[in-house]
């Protein structure tokens, strides 16, 4: 069995009396695409921020490539982040920079690459997500939501990371654009041979991009299996979520 690239072991996180994560155990191996399902407010984003080191767990461990990175700071944390890409739910593109400066942000700031070289590399990466050089000098506000997601994907993959996180990659997009984003995710993850962790509540997206699917409920992973088995999980919670029923053990987040 391949050694996992990322492991979350017994991760717990609370905000005051609100216990968001209650012992999450999950891992992903290189070249595999794991999708984590969960309803609104189930703690998916908190789990992802803990994995990225944007939050520190109250208990448990985050292991990246065999190293415990739970409490890493400074250069050790930067070394991990240099191998990780992240596509934020909102895109999180920097408004004050052009499209190419967004895509090449790490190259310009962390790697101190020459601007002309960084721009060339950004334009090459934009081509990989089906965006032409004509958008390179525009600001994020001047392009559509679907294009912003592609720019954010280009920013996530430009340094050829070993692990890519996708936070609700298709949220807010029409079904056709969402499917195009899913195709790009699959294509780029395969091309890089990277591990991918996506969190979503979009079942169409989950079915398309996942090798494996896990379900987060009340702060724990309650089911995990191959994507092909999601319709036969034998778990009432998963079954209700997959079929989008209001009736069942999961109470709607009203």
């Amino acid at each position: 069995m391949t050694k996992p690239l990322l492991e979350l072991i017994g991760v717990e996180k609370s905000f005051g009396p609100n216990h968001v994560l209650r012992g999450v155990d999950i891992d992903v191996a290189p070249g595999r695409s794991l999708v984590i399902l969960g309803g609104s407010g189930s703690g998916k984003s908190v789990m992802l921020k803990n994995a990225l080191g944007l939050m520190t767990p109250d208990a448990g461990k985050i292991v990246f490539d065999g190293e415990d990175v739970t409490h890493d700071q400074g250069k050790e944390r930067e070394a991990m982040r240099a191998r990780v890409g992240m596509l934020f739910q909102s895109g999180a593109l920097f408004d004050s920079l052009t499209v190419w400066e967004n895509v090449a942000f790490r190259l310009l700031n962390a790697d101190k690459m020459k601007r002309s070289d960084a721009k060339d590399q950004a334009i090459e990466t934009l081509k990989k997500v089906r965006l032409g050089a004509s958008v390179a000098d525009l600001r994020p506000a001047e392009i559509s939501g679907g294009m912003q997601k592609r720019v954010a994907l280009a920013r996530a993959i430009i340094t050829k990371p070993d692990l890519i996180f996708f936070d609700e990659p298709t949220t807010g997009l029409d079904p056709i654009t969402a499917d195009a984003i899913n195709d790009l995710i699959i294509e780029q993850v395969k091309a890089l041979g990277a591990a991918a962790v996506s969190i979503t509540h979009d079942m169409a997206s989950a079915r398309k991009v996942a090798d494996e699917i896990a379900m987060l409920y009340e702060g724990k992973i309650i089911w995990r299996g191959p994507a092909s088995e999601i319709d036969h999980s034998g778990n009432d919670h998963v079954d209700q979520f997959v079929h989008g029923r209001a009736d069942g053990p999961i109470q709607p987040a009203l």
Partner: protein
Amino acid sequence: MSDASTTSSGGFPNPLAWLGRGTLGLLSEIGRISIFSGRTGLAAFSPPWNLTQLWKQIVAIGFYSLPVVGLSAVFIGAALALNIYTGGNRFGAEQFVPNIVVLGITRELGATITGLMLAGRVTAGIAAEIGAMKVTEQIDALKTLSANPFRYLYAPRFLAAALTLPILVLVADIIGVMGGWLVSVYALDFDSTTYIRNTVDFLTMEDVSVGLIKAVIFGMVIALMGCYQGSKSSAGATGVGRAATLSMVGAAVLVLAANYVLSTFFVQIGI
């Protein structure tokens, strides 16, 4: 349902609990601002510096504040001259208008008015920009891209404000004195040459330096309050709006408080 720990038996708020909670909250906030200021200062005064961001902020904070500072200064100088003339008239001291205008503008009003105007224009702008970046996950994105927000966002604003405020205050001093001259010559029938000679004769480097030193401190306060409130902005338009308001009010009060403390200090050391 009332909280038993904060209400007395009659259902009225327990003043001791209220006072205790307020004190603890205030101390926590002072602690958080101190840590934030320390980290920003450390990033500002140690390499590497992000010169591109620094230049952008010098233009945004310094250059684009020139109109508002200039307009405020001319009116303050003009009003000051009128009031000194009217007040001085009561005991035959109208001739001191140029002296008091230049003293008041350089030691006090140039720096204070610039500080207050920038608390409105710059602090609220910084808080709103950083608050919006926070709620749209741009600050998280910076961290994942190995950019430290203290170096990339806060330190350039802090340095830019500390560097440009003295220049703005110098401009405010010149325009403020000009405002006084305009009113004195064209409304109060002062002789232009005499007014200018009296102003120049009375002006000392110490008076100008007092205003410029205050300006450096005001610049730091203005940038820190904007960055701090923006960085802890809560989600949504309300959160960003609240951060902008709190930052502006906080910066204005701190500018006035710092002005008093610094004035006391300069008087104590005889400047």
